[in-house]
């Protein structure tokens, strides 16, 4: 027989916590389970693991929201939003503003979702642990071609660059190279299309140098100090290490419906200080600016 005991409980039971302060919004299972919709997210490969983790968690609370994600470099995020084939463009820069190489995407709103530290990395056979901004500029422009010119062994430097359109590339150029240009061709020059490809290239190419999100750094490579500052989360938060950016979810205007709910989930304290940190991103609230 069907139990009715739940019905006997008066849900008029009220928490009258008025006097001792405001009633803060509960953050457990805020999302309405009946929320439905379809969200397509495209763009930054750096943000893809975070997006998929968030989608998996969000869907447990909202099984009727379908979330599909893809990545092919940051610029394809706001492009896909502008074209109307994605609801969210994951991008490693604020694409509502002009940045070197890219004009702003009019009408798009940048929703901060994470802090992404970037690191200059070398193959583990390289015996250099620190480079100055000038040395990095010279290496990535092709002016310095041998590791011995910057204190390393006598070996030709292999420069691995991300393809045009990468948010990591935009940020590395702006913040590690101080806006200086990259070399674009040469015998010891490679371009890769994703963070994963960069990781593989650096791990397997002796004497190589490249750059990537800190989260992708492995024990098979060296993350370089830049101007004697190590690329650590602590140094990003305390302002000493400058090569980082916010990760953004770009939307066409202010987000609504399921898209809004998903972005709010990613921005929630629980996700920011839980799964996002576990994936080695930095919560947006950690930054003072």
């Amino acid at each position, binding site marked *: 027989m069907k139990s009715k005991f739940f019905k006997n409980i008066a849900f008029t039971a009220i928490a009258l916590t008025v006097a001792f302060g405001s009633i803060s919004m509960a953050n457990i299972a805020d999302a309405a389970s009946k929320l439905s919709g379809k969200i397509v997210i495209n763009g930054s490969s750096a943000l893809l693991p975070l997006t998929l983790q968030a989608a998996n968690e969000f869907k447990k609370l909202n099984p009727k929201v379908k979330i599909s994600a893809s990545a092919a470099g940051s610029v394809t995020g706001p492009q896909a939003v502008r074209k109307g084939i994605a609801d969210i463009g994951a991008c490693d820069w604020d694409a509502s503003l002009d940045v070197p190489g890219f004009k702003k995407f009019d009408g798009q709103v940048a929703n901060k979702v994470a802090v992404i530290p970037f690191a200059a990395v070398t193959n583990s056979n390289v015996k250099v642990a620190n480079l100055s901004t000038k040395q990095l500029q010279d290496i990535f422009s092709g002016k310095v071609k041998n590791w011995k010119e910057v204190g390393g062994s006598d070996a030709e430097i292999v420069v691995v660059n991300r393809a045009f359109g990468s948010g990591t590339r935009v940020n590395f150029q702006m913040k590690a190279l101080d806006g200086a240009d990259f070399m674009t061709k040469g015998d010891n020059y490679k371009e890769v299309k994703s963070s994963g490809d960069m990781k593989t290239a650096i791990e397997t190419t002796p004497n190589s140098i490249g750059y990537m999100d800190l989260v992708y750094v492995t024990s098979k490579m060296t993350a370089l100090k830049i101007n004697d500052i190590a690329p650590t989360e602590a140094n990003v938060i305390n302002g000493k290490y400058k090569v980082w950016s916010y990760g953004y979810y770009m939307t066409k205007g202010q987000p609504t419906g399921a898209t809004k709910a998903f972005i709010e989930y990613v921005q929630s304290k629980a996700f920011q200080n*839980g799964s996002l940190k576990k994936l080695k991103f930095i919560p947006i609230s950690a930054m003072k600016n």
Partner: protein
Amino acid sequence: MSIKKTIVVTALATALSVSIVGAAAAAQTQMKQAIGTQQSSLSINDAMASIRSVTLNGITYMSIRDLGNAVGVYFEVNDKGGVSAFFQGHTIELRGLSKEIVVDGAARELQYAVENVNNMYFITLSDFISAIGAESTLDGAGQVSLSTVQKVKDPSRVIWLNASSLLASVIEEEGRFDYIVDAKTGQFTELLTTTDASDLVVAPNGQTAAYSVESGAVYVIDLASKQSKAVTYDGSIKPELVWSADSSAIYFLQGDKGSVIAKLNLSDGKISKVLEDKVDYKANLSVSADGSQFHYTVIKPGAVTADSSKPVDQDDVAIDLTGTEPQVYRFDASIKDGKPEKLTATTDDKVFVGAAADGSKAFYVSAEDNKLASLVSVAKDKTIAKLIEDKDVLQAVMAGNKIYVLADGGSSEIVYEIDAATGQKKELSTVPNSVTELIVAAGAPIAIVSDGQVSVDNNGQWKKVTQ
């Protein structure tokens, strides 16, 4: 505001009964005398209390002194012609015949003025509850219960620790706070405070819980002694931790893409790979009781075509989302050189629920456009069966060999219990539409999340255990 401790409690009792009042206060206070009082029965903090009450103009008022004594309020006469009440670190000032009270220095208004009857102060129950920040419930029999137990506020996650305790986690900017909550009273004690711990995963033996930190290290905390011990300092990312049935090992997905299934032995801290098949974005790992059968989902990102040689403003980008729906996989580690098997290939969206303890079936919520979300099982032989398809499934969670389902019942939601072995469905109850989540564990009562607050089934009554 400093509290004048020099005034003794006896002065207070006097003030509350107004047998002696200062001249100024007496002048202000117009007593209503010779009105008969009744005794009202209230459940206060799970104990019955007899409270004097009066009815004036159809409104029932209760003795402030009786209510205060029952909940543990400390009273003092103040120099404003009234009394100050001290309760749980707060100060409330009130006066006879006045609607105004001052809470922690801020004035606010009661619905009804405090009455002075037969030399005693009386207040309506709702105003008293409001003033001290208590919670009240009214059961089906009309019994009012009042609780002043301080509860965990705004937990981000609540799970069962055992049949009588819950684990409530509060995440703030400054860190993470995990509390053990008494499931009957809501009283709580701190278990763990950290800046970078993951969600705690309770061992099947109920004695320990595991968590990872940002560095990748895994710790196990003893729930009784509250002492944590590192079991590995391995730096790899571990998105999910899953206990073995005998609580001797922890399985985890390894790497930011969850590509590898690994096993961490607690006795020696050694990590071994269970499966490394170069398939990224595994999630929702489930391990059978004997540790041989692994179920998980795999999600495939969409394929993007973009020509970076073309001007950006041409938006030369295309996304192919074909085949990106999550699929359920099974891996039998007992077969030498065995390969994972893809159990599903359907285009519905899948929210993984869990797998039977013997690894014979996995369960998921299936969602498709313009259809009710259904609860589905998939067997080893890839047979798919719909366990609930006539109601919109809002949530499904597994506890032992039972699946508990919250389904849309129209004016209210329905709670079902499904036997994972037989698929037999039992309608347990109905709950209000405000319920968004069920919290279950084998052997524990059902808890619900309604309007963000957790309530536990306590012999047919919902007892709120968080704020």
